[in-house]
């Protein structure tokens, strides 16, 4: 995926000036890599992901995926996992996972084979007949990942998928994500606000500035492909996390200062 001069400006309403939300951003996402994006609250991380996914249109700049422009619709081969639980409460776990294949009109045998695989891969085999409301938050996010995985995307965009989970579950879900990445060879872009998560999972970590979000630095981690959450014991993990915080601290202060300036008190 190639991103050039990507900018998003929200038009002003009721006489207020336009709001510059993002960019300009230049970034190349290489096939098979795992890239994390971190940034202060409100810097436009989710806007960035929506633009990459084709769910929103940029005000300026361009995005190409496998050489084809992305603008206003989600390209074939791109899967998205959202921050909030997006499992369908009216479908069972298995039906949720099979949703995309059924929408594509795949034949029954193919649907069963691929959905069973995705369900097994995400450790949901014992819950195929359960409804999402019967599962924990982490399990529901696994359902959403399985629903994306079953379509065999070549690029998976994840928007803070573990934000609502506790720390232990997040670490374990991080392991699951690394396993998924290795076994599918998909390219992954993970938006997160957690520096440790970004440092642990990614090959490269892109650090965004306060709004309008621009890329301040893209930091390579140089972890081995076979890594898992035990990498937090590595001394370099602390150094990478500290480096990320050093870059982000001023930006986070700026974002907070902006919030404070809105306070009439």
């Amino acid at each position: 995926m190639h991103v050039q001069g990507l900018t998003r400006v929200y038009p002003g309403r009721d006489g207020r000036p336009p709001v510059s939300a993002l960019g300009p951003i230049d970034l190349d996402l290489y096939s098979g890599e795992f890239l994390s994006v971190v940034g202060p609250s409100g810097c436009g991380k989710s806007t960035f992901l929506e633009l990459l996914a084709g769910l929103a249109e940029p005000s300026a700049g361009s995005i190409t995926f496998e050489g084809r422009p992305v603008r206003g619709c989600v390209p074939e081969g791109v899967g998205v996992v959202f921050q909030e639980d997006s499992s369908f409460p009216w479908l069972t776990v298995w039906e949720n996972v099979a949703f995309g294949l059924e929408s594509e009109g795949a034949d029954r045998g193919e649907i069963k084979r691929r959905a069973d695989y995705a369900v097994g891969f995400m450790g949901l085999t014992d819950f195929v007949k359960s409804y999402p409301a019967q599962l924990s938050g982490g399990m529901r996010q696994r359902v959403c990942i399985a629903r994306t995985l079953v379509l065999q995307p070549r690029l998976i965009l994840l928007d803070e998928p573990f934000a609502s989970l506790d720390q232990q579950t997040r670490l374990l879900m991080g392991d699951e994500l690394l396993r998924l990445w290795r076994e599918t060879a998909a390219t992954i872009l993970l938006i997160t606000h957690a520096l440790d998560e970004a440092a642990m999972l990614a090959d490269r970590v892109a650090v965004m500035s306060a709004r309008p979000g621009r890329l301040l630095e893209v930091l390579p981690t140089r972890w081995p492909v076979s890594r898992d959450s035990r990498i937090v014991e590595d001394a370099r993990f602390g150094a990478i996390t500290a480096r990320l915080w050093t870059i982000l601290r001023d930006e986070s202060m700026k974002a907070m200062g902006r919030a404070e300036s809105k306070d009439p008190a």
Partner: protein
Amino acid sequence: MKRHAWTRLAIVLGVGMMLEVLCRAGAIPRLIMIPPSEMLASAWQILVSGQINSDLYFSLGNIALAVGLSVAGGFLVGLAIYSVPPLRTAAEPLLVSYSAVPPIVFYPMLIVLFGLGRIPQVVIAVMFGLIPMALHTISGLRRIRPVFWKVGRVHRLSALSSVLRIQLPAAGPYLFVGVTLAVSYSIIGVISTEFILSASGIGHQISSAYDNYDNRTMYGLVALLLGIATVLNSILYRYSRRMLNRWTR
């Protein structure tokens, strides 16, 4: 049976027994009301004798037609209004205001247009049932979580697939409230118009029995109607509980 179901049964039996005692003791004159046990006996006799089978089929047919048209029409009207935001802003308050008007007031106009018979009854019943269905469709669509729309776009669903596979089920609990109201209002619309616009149907038979001071038949028919409405609503209630359990367990 669960505790609340026992409580509900106890309330119904308690009210029934109280009326039975008051009627038998003469506190409520027979001219006003016959004992509930006689109502049930009369309803049973009417049902097994087959004397009102044609009226029963006529009313149930009209109710089914009115429910079908109210639900389908209300959903399409709601979907159309929801899909055009300026129309939504303009039309929703009108629908809310209209829902306070009893459509039965239009019956003189409908007699002129369609004469007596099935059509004006079904039209009035649909006028009763369509608006709550449309309002609940708008309400249900408005409450669909934005992330579901995004999931639909990620899966590159067509507009029709998006309606059928996401919007309809996601708005399901609200739509079902609309369906329940459409059923209730269709029953009210059909039976009440049969009192004045029809020469057949349960409503017409109740009206005839009333005119002939035949309280036993009249209350038997009322009990039968209550039974039909209760069975229909119980089925809808059980289904809605099952649906909500899936969503909230």
